[in-house]
């Protein structure tokens, strides 16, 4: 890269700085709450926590119902992300490269699966997964979440794949590449940014979904978000523990984006073929 043309525009640093403050303020407040007792949270205002108490965190790490929730969520989210991206990659390639019978209708139909409030589907889902004997398994939640993650993954990946010139495919096929080899060796590296973002979004939407995950599980696969609703009890709300659990829900996703950041930031390098 010899001459990088300037992409700056006036006020850009200010915009980023202001937005960072805006993003961090509620997160700071969550961390702040997580270190205080419930009495302190609900009675007095203070900019800084009075003490750096880790009691709320210790409760989460020592209670199997709490840390078990994290493990369950991580398991079904991981299964879901792998399956969603795995089935979406070839499909997105097909949509971006070929026309075939019903392609446009199918493409739009996929998205319609995201258009229903999940509350509507709770009872039918419960009946369906009970009938096939998958209730209270990680697989049930992972499969249920594919309803909204697969369409998302196909749509995002199709956008990125369509940006790759078709000549690249043609050249590779002329050079004697088979489809699977071409796809894995040449094409995938070109859509790294899209794949990274897609994997992150699948992870994210599955990680924060509560209604379906709670309906399809009872004990063995109970997700963390459902465990969190336990903090509402007759004695009132356990704000501190909820905030501490909230802080801990940030960590896995932050790790995921840390690992895919290289793919997202690099985009695709042209002229590799």
């Amino acid at each position, binding site marked *: 890269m010899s001459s990088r*043309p300037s992409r700056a525009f006036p006020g850009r640093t200010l*915009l980023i700085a202001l937005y960072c403050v805006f993003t961090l303020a509620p997160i700071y*407040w969550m961390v702040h709450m997580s270190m205080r007792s419930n009495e302190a949270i609900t009675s007095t205002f203070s900019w800084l926590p009075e003490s750096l108490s880790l009691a709320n965190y210790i409760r989460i790490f020592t209670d199997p119902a709490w840390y078990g929730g994290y493990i369950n969520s991580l398991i079904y989210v991981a299964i879901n992300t792998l*399956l969603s991206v795995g089935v979406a990659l070839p499909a997105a390639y097909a949509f971006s490269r070929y026309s075939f019978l019903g392609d446009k209708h199918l493409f739009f139909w996929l998205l319609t*699966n995201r258009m229903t409030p999940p509350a509507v589907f709770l009872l*039918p889902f419960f009946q369906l997964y009970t009938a096939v004997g998958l209730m209270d398994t990680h697989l049930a939640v992972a499969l249920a979440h594919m309803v909204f993650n697969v369409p998302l993954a196909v749509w995002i990946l199709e*956008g990125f794949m369509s940006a790759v010139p078709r000549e690249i495919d043609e050249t590779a096929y002329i050079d004697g590449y088979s489809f699977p080899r071409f796809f894995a060796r040449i094409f995938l590296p070109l859509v790294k940014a899209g794949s990274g973002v897609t994997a992150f979004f699948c992870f994210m939407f599955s990680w924060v979904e*509560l209604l379906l995950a709670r309906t399809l599980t009872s004990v063995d696969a109970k997700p963390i978000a459902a465990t969190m609703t336990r903090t509402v009890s007759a004695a009132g709300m356990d704000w501190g523990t909820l905030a501490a659990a909230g802080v801990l829900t940030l960590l896995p996703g932050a790790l995921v984006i840390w690992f895919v950041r290289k793919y997202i930031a690099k985009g695709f390098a042209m002229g590799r073929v």
Partner: protein
Amino acid sequence: MNGPKPVNQRAWWLVLPVLVSVAFSAIIPLMTVVNYSVQDILGPTQRVFVGMEWFREVLRDSELHGALLRQLVFSGAVLLIEMPLGVALALAMPQSGWRASLALVLFAMPLLIPWNVVGTIWQIFARPDIGMLGHALTQLGFDYNYAQHSMDAWITVLLMDVWHWTSLVALLAYAGLRSIPEAYYQAAAIDGASRWAVFRHIELPRLRSVLMIAVLLRFMDSFMIYTEPFVLTGGGPGTATTFLSQYLTQKAVGQFDLGPAAAFSLVYFLIILLVCFMLYSFMKDIDTRESP
């Protein structure tokens, strides 16, 4: 782009896994809902066919009309704020190095918090007596109280949504920007194009497909928003922040009206479908009109 795509029916094999996995969890439940919407369910085994009765009831419901209007205004505001802001952020974000990584992780954070926790945090965060935002606004002399004033409740819910979801637009647009080949920028620099011209004629057209996804996603998700306002304001004060899905849930869960609730959700689905299709056709249209 470069000519029409080649016709290849074997591409169906590549799509098949997607079709099977989505259809398994989508078609059977959808059929169940359609089935409920035309029946009066009196008990587990007792049900009566009522035809269009529930649909008529739903369409005449004046509370529903109020909720629908609020919902449309809310989703419109969400799109008008989050789309331009997200794109601006994506353009302003550092392009490489540790600062880019930091910005990515930072911006991703609000997305990763379970929605019920988002509502709970904002519930405290915006309280005028014990929350940072409410406290700061009160100190500045505003008479702010989201639990009592409808306008304040509205602004708080909107601000929470902007905080929660603008990052999604920013991350998508950022990844889209990174996929633009360097050669395009170099060509523009040789032509002496202004920053605005680069944005208008290189970046914006190449971002179109990610922006379309972002618009559709933000529309759908904001139109179905439930958990966050439910936890934050409970729909109040009065019905000021009672959005469609909260009203639907009140019907389905609170009143056990399975039939009307199913009819309601089908109408709901059709509205989302219609608006999405309009947005999709509109943006596709720009695509064919402007590409060289």
